[in-house]
């Protein structure tokens, strides 16, 4: 199992995509991060079980993203890691983190970034600048944006809307798939709210065993739910 390495190690080193997708560490990149060759060697060493685990992780990470299939998202994670070799920016694999844990966390981070939009924070910032009685154009003008910027922003807002719609659609797909399973409905509701397991158990009345069984049943159900999707 990878619980410790995923939670205790990679989370220390990797920031979210929304923060730029950079790896944070105080170690010198020269010896703390893997080279391209070491990444290639790690890929070569992957066992069948590890590859099966990575593929499943890619399936789960795919929900709500623009990626069309698990391998596309996985490939993106490895490519970004290779691109980060030897440069300050980008993603880096800290060698003291298990490669499987790193790549799963990276896929999750990319997916989180894919579900969000840089423009969302920008818009929120501008709204804050404009104030309750302000207007967006005034705020944009104060920021020095030209009309072209506004057009680009409008397109990006449209893109963000699509992302939100995709996230909502995938959540709805999951809910519909488990519509007949009351325990899993509690899990989905709790997960969406970011509730902790004990909170979900308290609300649902499930004991630990029932919770674990439902959780496993839920994840196995997800295995068949997202084989891939067509590009929109």
């Amino acid at each position, binding site marked *: 199992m990878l619980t410790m390495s995923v939670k205790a190690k990679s989370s220390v080193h990797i920031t979210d995509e929304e923060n730029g997708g950079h790896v944070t560490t105080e170690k010198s990149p020269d010896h703390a991060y893997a080279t391209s060759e070491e990444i290639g060697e790690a890929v070569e060493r992957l066992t069948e*079980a590890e*590859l099966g685990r990575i593929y499943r992780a890619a399936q789960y990470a795919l929900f709500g993203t623009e990626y069309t299939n698990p391998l596309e998202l*996985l*490939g993106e994670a*490895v490519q970004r890691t290779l691109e980060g070799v030897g440069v300050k920016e980008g993603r880096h694999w800290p060698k003291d983190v298990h490669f499987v844990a790193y790549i799963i966390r990276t896929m999750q981070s990319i997916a989180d970034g894919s579900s*969000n939009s840089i423009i969302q924070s920008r818009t929120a910032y501008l709204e804050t600048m404009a104030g309750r009685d302000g207007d967006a154009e005034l705020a944009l003008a104060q920021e020095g944006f030209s009309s072209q910027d506004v057009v680009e922003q409008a397109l990006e807002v449209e893109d963000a809307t699509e992302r939100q719609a995709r996230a909502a659609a995938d959540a709805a797909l999951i809910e519909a798939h488990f519509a007949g399973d009351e325990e899993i409905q509690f899990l989905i509701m709790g997960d969406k709210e970011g509730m902790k397991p004990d909170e979900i158990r308290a609300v649902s009345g499930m004991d630990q065993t029932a919770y674990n069984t439902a959780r496993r049943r839920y994840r196995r159900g997800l295995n068949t739910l997202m084989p891939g999707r067509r590009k929109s």
Partner: protein
Amino acid sequence: MKQSKESREIGFIRARALEDLANTSDEEIRNEYREAGQDLATVAKQTHDMLRDVVAVGMRVRLASAKAATKTSSASRPVHRVRPTMERLKGILAETFTREPKIAMAFRDGKKQTDEDLATVYDDLVRMGIIKPEDHGD
């Protein structure tokens, strides 16, 4: 960053599924594939092949960058070197690729390479310092 409600919710769903996966043993994952009627060996191979391709492309890009940088830096000091015979050159490349499998992977593109291609590869590897002609008595 401000997240939309929808993005936040799907993010939580992803996180919990991945958390549960991290708490699942390899054996359980094998069983899940079997029970789902999926062939783990096939999925693993497809995944491995894709990862190898991504690595190979990444290595080629890196080598191309190194080649461009080397050409730029060596432009002012051209090196006149006589290549070994083609048979000898192939032997040196074979030995180099055995010693540096990742380099071999970087040049793997599924195409048969001509003598001219191999000569260019040889020149590139000499420029990059991966092949040292003096080590081969050339």
